[in-house]
C-alpha cells in the first residue's frame, strides 16, 4: 500500500482549477491557429484572432479565459494500491475547488439546488468522478465546465439496428440546435455504448482527450474524422456567423453495451474547452 495524504490532493485540485481557467489547453490553442489558417471570411478570421489574443491575455494577466469558470468536474483515477491518509478525500477535493475559486477570483456559479437556487458562494460542491484503476498512483484531472455549451448537450437511446447515418444525423442536429449559444467552434465529446449514464459520462470524459488525437479503435477514429468534416461543411462557423470552423475536434469514447441498446451522448463544449491534470 502506498499512502497519499489528502492534503496533497487538495493542493493539486486547487492548482489545477487555476491552471485550467487561466491557460487554454495547448491542443485547443493549436486547433484555433489551424482553423485561422483555414478560414476565408474576414469575420470568421477576426473572431478566431480575438480568441487567440484572449487566451494570451488570460494567461499573462491571470484573468479567467471565460467568465463562466464552470462547475468544477474533478476526475480521480485512483490506483487500488493507494490508501488515503489525512482525512476525507471528498472534503479535500471540495476544499481545493473552494480555495482556487476564491484566490483566483473565479466566478462562483453553483447554486445549492434547482428550485430555491441560492448561490453556495464557494463554487462547491464539485462534480467528483472516481475510477478505481490498477497501480498505486492517483491521477487528478480538473475540467471546469461552462453551461452555455452544457445546456446544449443531449443523449439518445437508439435501436441496436440504427445505422451510422442516423447516429451522425443526430450528432449533426445537436450542433445545429446549439447554434451560436454554445460558442462555436466547439469540441464535441461523444459517448457511445454502456448504459444511459455511462454514455453521458464517457461523452464528458472524451473532452479530456487532446483535440487532434483520435480513438485507438480504427472505425471510431474514422467516424470522428467523418463527423469533423461533415459538421465543418455545414458553414456554421465561429460564433455561428458563418465559416469553415464549427468544430475544433470530435472525440469519441465507447464501452460495450446491451443487445437491445445503442446509447449515444453528445457533450457539447465551447472553444474554451478547459482541463488540467496531474499524477500523484
Amino acid at each position, binding site marked *: 500500500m502506498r499512502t497519499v495524504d489528502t492534503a496533497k490532493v487538495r493542493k493539486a485540485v486547487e492548482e489545477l482549477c487555476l491552471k485550467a481557467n487561466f491557460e487554454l489547453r495547448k491542443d485547443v490553442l493549436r486547433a484555433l491557429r489551424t482553423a485561422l489558417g483555414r478560414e476565408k471570411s474576414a469575420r470568421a478570421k477576426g473572431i478566431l484572432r480575438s480568441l487567440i489574443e484572449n487566451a494570451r491575455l488570460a494567461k499573462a494577466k491571470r484573468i*479567467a479565459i471565460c467568465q463562466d469558470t464552470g462547475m468544477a468536474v474533478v476526475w480521480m483515477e485512483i490506483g487500488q494500491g493507494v490508501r488515503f491518509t489525512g482525512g476525507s478525500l471528498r472534503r479535500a477535493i471540495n476544499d481545493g475547488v473552494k480555495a482556487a475559486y476564491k484566490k483566483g477570483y473565479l*466566478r*462562483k456559479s453553483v447554486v445549492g439546488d434547482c428550485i430555491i437556487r441560492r448561490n453556495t458562494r464557494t463554487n462547491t460542491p464539485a462534480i467528483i468522478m472516481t475510477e478505481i484503476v490498477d497501480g498505486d498512483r492517483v491521477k487528478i484531472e480538473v475540467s471546469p465546465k461552462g453551461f452555455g455549451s452544457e445546456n446544449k448537450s443531449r443523449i439518445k437511446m437508439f435501436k441496436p439496428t440504427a445505422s451510422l447515418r442516423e447516429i451522425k444525423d443526430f450528432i449533426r442536429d445537436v450542433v445545429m440546435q446549439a447554434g451560436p449559444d454554445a460558442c462555436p467552434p466547439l469540441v464535441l465529446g461523444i459517448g457511445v455504448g454502456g448504459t444511459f449514464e455511462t454514455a453521458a459520462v464517457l461523452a464528458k470524459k472524451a473532452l479530456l482527450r487532446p483535440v487532434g488525437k483520435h480513438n485507438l479503435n480504427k472505425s471510431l477514429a474514422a467516424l470522428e474524422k467523418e463527423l469533423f468534416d461533415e459538421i465543418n461543411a455545414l458553414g456554421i462557423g465561429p460564433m455561428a*456567423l458563418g465559416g469553415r470552423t464549427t468544430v475544433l475536434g470530435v472525440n469519441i469514447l465507447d464501452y460495450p453495451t446491451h443487445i437491445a441498446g445503442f446509447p449515444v451522448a453528445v457533450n457539447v463544449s465551447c472553444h474554451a474547452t478547459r482541463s488540467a491534470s496531474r499524477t500523484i
Partner: protein
Amino acid sequence: MIPKKIHTPLADDVIRSLRAGDEILLSGVILTARDAAHRRLFDMLKRGGRIPLDLRETAIYYAGPTPARPGRPIGACGPTTSSRMDAFTPALLESGLAVMIGKGDRSPEVRRAIKKHAVVYFVATGGLGALLSTKVKSSKVILFKELGPEAVHRLEVKDFPLTVAIDSKGNDIYDKAGWKKQ
C-alpha cells in the same frame, strides 16, 4: 469593415442607423443583468410595480462577470446566452428598454418586439472574457447585491467591441450567416 464608434445612451436616430452585421465600438454605461435579475425585474413589472432602473437610458448586457482582482475594475466579462432571457424581454422592451447585448439568436417573439419598438440587439463574442475585461473602466453593483455574480453591475465601458445582430427593422445577422437551424 471599420467599426463605428457609438456612445450610450443611444439616441433613436443612432439606433435606427444601425444595420445587422455592423461592427460597433460601444462606450458609456451599460448594466449587467442575467437570469435571476431578469426574473426579478419581470416579476416587478408583472405586479404592476416600477423597476428601480431607468430602462430608457441604459443598455442591458447579459453577463455575470468574475470578481475583480485588487487594482482592476472587473474580471472576465463576456456575454451569456441571450435566449434564456427571451421570455422576459418583450415586457422590458414595452417598458422602454432599447439596447440589449448578449450572445446568440433570439425567439420569434423577441425578434417581433425588437422590430415593433425599433430597438437594437448586439452580440459580443462568447468566451472572450479576458479581452473584454480590458474594455471595462469601472464596475459597481447597483441592484440585487445578494445575487452575487447575477447582481446588476453598472459598467463603464470604452470601445467595447460588438456586432449588430438584430437591427431596428428586424433584420437578423443569423439569417444572413449562410446556414439555417433546422
